[in-house]
């Protein structure tokens, strides 16, 4: 059969010649050479096929883990819609973006035209990590602060009424009166506030910055106040205490297990649950973060080792530690006030580009030791550093990696 020119191929019938790449060798070579070339060609194609199949498998894993869909999907929609609307429901949309321990979001709301009630959701407790509900109450305080700011930004005057009672009762009511629009920088920072667990740069935070943060602790959150640990020796002692508490945490199987229950490895679990801690929130560099998603999900033991290792890095790189102190850390109203201050500080950090991360391992261990009736090896060293009444601790500094959005249940999913 006569070869046809390539340009005529498109017009050929199925019985006509086709085009074949010249990879089988020339015509005038001996059979053994052809055989060798043929073998090499087939081996090459086989290897290429294997690589492509492996690449397709990795690509599927990347797709399944949302590598190219970071911070997107139903679990993150709340971050895009929190400024929409002016009705009370839209204020709840801002409240759900508040910080919460392990991102448990332990809140429920009822909404009326002139009032929003906040309830504790004890089904979302972190168990052995928060046996006295300290962090749960602080988380509710954070939500109250966002609610307060959102009401002001919508021209409503919020009046907060804390409701005493048991842990499953109504926690607080916010009456919504008429007022003027106050679109504060703290309110505007609600959508960009993220815990930043990355390593921080070594430079210190200016004293004026810390003083500005001190000013957030006004009468509205009394008796909550702020204690800073900025001296190298104090930071070292607090950091060492933090790492010790973390080691005690992972050695406590119940604490470790209940903490791991809030870890979301799979993208599907992130989108379905819309809560918990994710690999995006760990503060890793993008390449390492991606590798973490592509690799199989970590075991609890592996996650514990990473927790300790990351705590060492976080403690070492903190420019300053802050501790919110109240008169009675067991009293819910004071915890709520401390939570409001914590959220306010976090929003202020977000507005100014400062990294902020809660570091609650020490107080978690103190509560856990109390629950178990053990000696409290962390209570006295902490009191030596910051005095009595420590409620919640955090670190600040200049982050090396931007904080990322955490999954959120939207307002409609947290109504009671």
């Amino acid at each position: 059969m006569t070869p046809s020119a390539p340009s005529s191929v498109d017009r050929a019938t199925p019985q006509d010649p086709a085009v074949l790449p010249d990879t089988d060798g020339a015509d005038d070579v001996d059979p053994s050479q052809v055989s060798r070339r043929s073998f090499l060609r087939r081996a090459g194609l086989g290897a290429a096929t294997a690589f492509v199949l492996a690449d397709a498998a990795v690509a599927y894993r990347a797709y399944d883990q949302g590598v190219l869909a970071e911070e997107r999907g139903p679990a993150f929609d709340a971050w895009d819609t929190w400024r929409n609307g002016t009705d009370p429901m839209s204020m709840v949309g801002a409240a759900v973006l508040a910080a919460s321990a392990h991102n448990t979001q332990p809140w429920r709301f009822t909404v009326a035209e002139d009032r929003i009630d906040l309830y504790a959701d004890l089904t979302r407790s972190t168990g052995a990590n928060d046996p006295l509900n300290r962090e749960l109450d602080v988380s509710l305080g954070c939500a109250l602060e966002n609610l307060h700011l959102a009401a002001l930004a919508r021209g409503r005057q919020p009046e907060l009424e804390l409701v005493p009672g048991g842990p499953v009762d109504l926690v607080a009511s916010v009456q919504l009166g008429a007022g003027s629009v106050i679109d504060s920088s703290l309110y505007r920072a609600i959508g960009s506030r993220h815990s930043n667990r990355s390593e921080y740069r070594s430079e210190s935070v200016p004293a004026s910055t810390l003083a500005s943060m001190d000013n957030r602790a006004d009468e509205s959150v009394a008796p909550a106040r702020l204690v800073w640990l900025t001296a190298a020796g104090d930071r070292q002692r607090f950091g060492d205490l933090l790492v010790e508490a973390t080691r005690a945490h992972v050695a406590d199987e119940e604490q470790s297990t209940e903490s791991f229950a809030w870890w979301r490895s799979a993208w599907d679990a992130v989108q379905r649950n819309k809560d918990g801690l994710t690999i995006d929130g760990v503060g890793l560099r993008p390449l390492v973060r991606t590798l973490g998603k592509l690799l199989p999900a970590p075991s609890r033991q592996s996650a514990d080792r990473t927790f300790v290792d990351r705590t060492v890095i976080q403690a070492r790189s903190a420019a300053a530690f802050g501790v919110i102190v109240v008169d009675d850390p067991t009293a819910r109203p004071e915890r709520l006030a401390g939570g409001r201050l914590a959220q306010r500080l976090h929003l202020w950090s977000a507005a100014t580009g400062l990294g902020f991360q809660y570091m609650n391992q020490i107080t978690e261990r103190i509560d856990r030791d109390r629950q178990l009736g053990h000696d409290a090896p962390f209570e006295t060293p902490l009191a030596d550093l910051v005095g009595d009444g420590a409620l919640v601790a955090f670190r600040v500094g200049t982050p090396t990696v931007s904080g990322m959005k955490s999954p959120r249940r939207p307002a409609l999913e947290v109504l009671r």
Partner: protein
Amino acid sequence: MNSGDRTLLAAGSIAAVLGVGAGVAEIVAGTVTWAGNKNDPTALGWVTIGLGIVIGAASLAATRTRRPGARLVAAATLLVCALLGLTTAGLAWIPAAVAAMVACALIVRRPRPAGAWRAVIRAQWTAVLVVVLSFIYLAFGIVARDRVGLLGIAGAVAACIALALHGRSHRAAAAVVMVVAAVPFAVATAWTVVMPLTAVLMLAIGLPYVLGHSRPMTSTGGIS
């Protein structure tokens, strides 16, 4: 266009319309059982729409060429899309998948001398691998969205254009297009690991292919 091609085009068009319709329905309906209970129905709905469009394009391309390699790629495209859609739109994709499989079968069943497909597969296997890689680009381009996503979609299209140029003996141009197809999206998404890896494979497999000489082949697979 003969009657066989008209039937093929009709099946492909039906598959495309059903596929696009399944994607739209998934976006509109949200998380529902018949669309696979997906957590992110909007993104997957767009991917499904993309698959429907690819099916339509592949069917059309298959009717416009007699080249066995090109028709084989079109058939493979239809097959892959038919299977992929089941993971993006669940039951809603089944009608489109059935129509796409019919179109695929119409391409493959064309009467040919014995051994012709085998010869074509052997000859065009490298191109098929590049098409698979370009599918990965396309899928991730759709998922990435925005400008970065456009780089992925454009890269996938450009890789296929490079393969087509090779058949027309524009080897240098084909090589340039292949590089342009692979590099930008990989650079823009370097942190994803998988995109740079895909780009390396696309260049390692695609460049030698498009730079290689073309030789005529008989329909039975022998070199004349």
